[in-house]
């Protein structure tokens, strides 16, 4: 179809859009919560969706936490009934991606091939997801010939150093070694309005040093949607994507064939969406949401009592 038109969703429009939807995909940061505070009304929205028989699934570029930690976080912030299996983080999906690429369909049965090791630039949440996928992590020191490092995974790494960058480049000299990034985000907002550097900035350093382009698992690329479809079989034409970042969430929705709703409680401003709409570039137009709301709490009147 043509370009989305960024219409405010309210009143009768809410029921027209939400009525036919079988489910909603939500980004988390800036949509459900900001830092340690739930967005007012967001827990009630999820509860109302549940009662309406509509599915709620979660797709986040944040590679810091395991899905088990995220499940606890949902509960702690007042969102009840969200289970780990509903949550698709870039940490989980990067591990699934690497499992597919390194272990294939069941691994090298009989050949003793463990698929090789993964050098992870990231915290314990990301490392745990990679281990849970059946992969082995590279520690300090040399890879043995029996277990070469077959992938470098760049995630959010607040312990990133020049030494780790150099080590990653060493592994990437082998053209068989994959370079994978959890997400492209250049920065993330902090609760006081400041910004903290994102995985995208670390990936740029690794790409520059190695001369390689990373395979990016997270939004706006569609791999996380493939993971969702594999587990839950959602129909894109009956599913809405709700997010706060035009360059990742809204573009992801567009790429996956989902209608998109921008919520204004996070990163992107309405003026930015309007600027994309006014732009001549096709790439810009793909980041225009179909609809917007001030907060996801505004969706509640669109659901049956």
């Amino acid at each position: 179809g043509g370009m989305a038109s960024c219409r405010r969703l309210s009143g009768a429009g809410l029921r027209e859009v939400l009525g036919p939807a079988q489910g909603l995909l939500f980004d988390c940061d800036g949509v459900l919560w900001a830092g340690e505070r739930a967005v007012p009304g967001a827990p009630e929205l999820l509860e109302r969706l549940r009662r309406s028989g509509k599915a709620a699934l979660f797709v986040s570029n944040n590679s810091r936490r395991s899905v088990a930690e995220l499940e606890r976080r949902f509960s702690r912030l007042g969102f009840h009934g969200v289970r780990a299996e509903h949550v698709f983080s870039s940490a989980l999906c990067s591990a699934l991606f690497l499992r597919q690429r390194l272990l294939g369909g069941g691994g090298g049965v009989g050949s003793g091939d463990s698929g090789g090791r993964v050098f992870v630039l990231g915290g314990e949440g990301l490392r745990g997801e990679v281990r849970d996928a059946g992969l082995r992590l590279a520690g300090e020191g040399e890879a043995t010939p029996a277990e070469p490092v077959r992938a470098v995974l760049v995630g959010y790494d607040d312990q990133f150093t020049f030494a780790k960058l150099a080590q990653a480049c060493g592994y990437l000299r082998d053209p068989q070694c994959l370079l994978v990034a959890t997400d492209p985000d250049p920065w993330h907002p902090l609760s006081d309005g400041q910004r903290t550097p994102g995985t995208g900035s670390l990936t740029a350093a690794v790409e520059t040093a190695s001369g390689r382009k990373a395979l990016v698992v997270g939004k706006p690329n569609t791999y996380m949607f493939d993971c969702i479809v594999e587990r839950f079989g959602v129909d894109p034409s009956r599913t809405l994507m709700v997010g706060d970042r035009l360059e990742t969430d809204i573009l992801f929705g567009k790429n996956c064939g989902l209608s998109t709703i921008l919520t204004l409680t996070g990163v992107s401003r309405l003026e930015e969406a309007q600027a994309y709409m006014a732009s001549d570039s096709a790439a810009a137009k793909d980041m225009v949401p179909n609809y917007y709301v001030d907060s996801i709490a505004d969706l509640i009147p669109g659901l049956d009592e």
Partner: protein
Amino acid sequence: AALPGPAPADWAQAPLDPAVRAVLVGFDEHFSYAKLCQALRYLLRDGTDCLLVGTNRDHRLPLEGGAAIPGTGCLVKAVETAAQRDAFIVGKPNRYMFDCVASEFNIDPARTIMVGDRLDTDILMGNSCGLTTLLTLTGVSTLDEVRGHQDSNCPTRQSLVPDYYVDSISDLLPALGE
């Protein structure tokens, strides 16, 4: 200044030096996420225009045996990506350093030769500044790379082609008088 606490939430509360007007990214083997965080804070601070300057964009520094360590360009790219803005790059191939030399020493480009081993820094700068360019083959770039650029139809690649080459700068000795 030392950063308090172990995590970005703490780092983001550390006081900023009110006198800082520029972030300068050079070769830093102690580069870390914490430093990247601080750089971003200075660049985004309200009320001051903070410059972002990089010493150079070299991707890597070659070591013996084909190994290499990451170059300053990687660190510059990390800061540029986080801050979503471009750095002003002082080093080759930008002409800033040539302008410094030329103004100090009254250089006539038409009578000056630039000697270097890298096409994308030394030779490009020399060509851009109207110098005669001489590639020496004792370093990074190879004759095959030169021929590749020469055979291409791309004007950008053509500007990487030196006027002359030698196997080593010692080959210049016979041309100099006794």
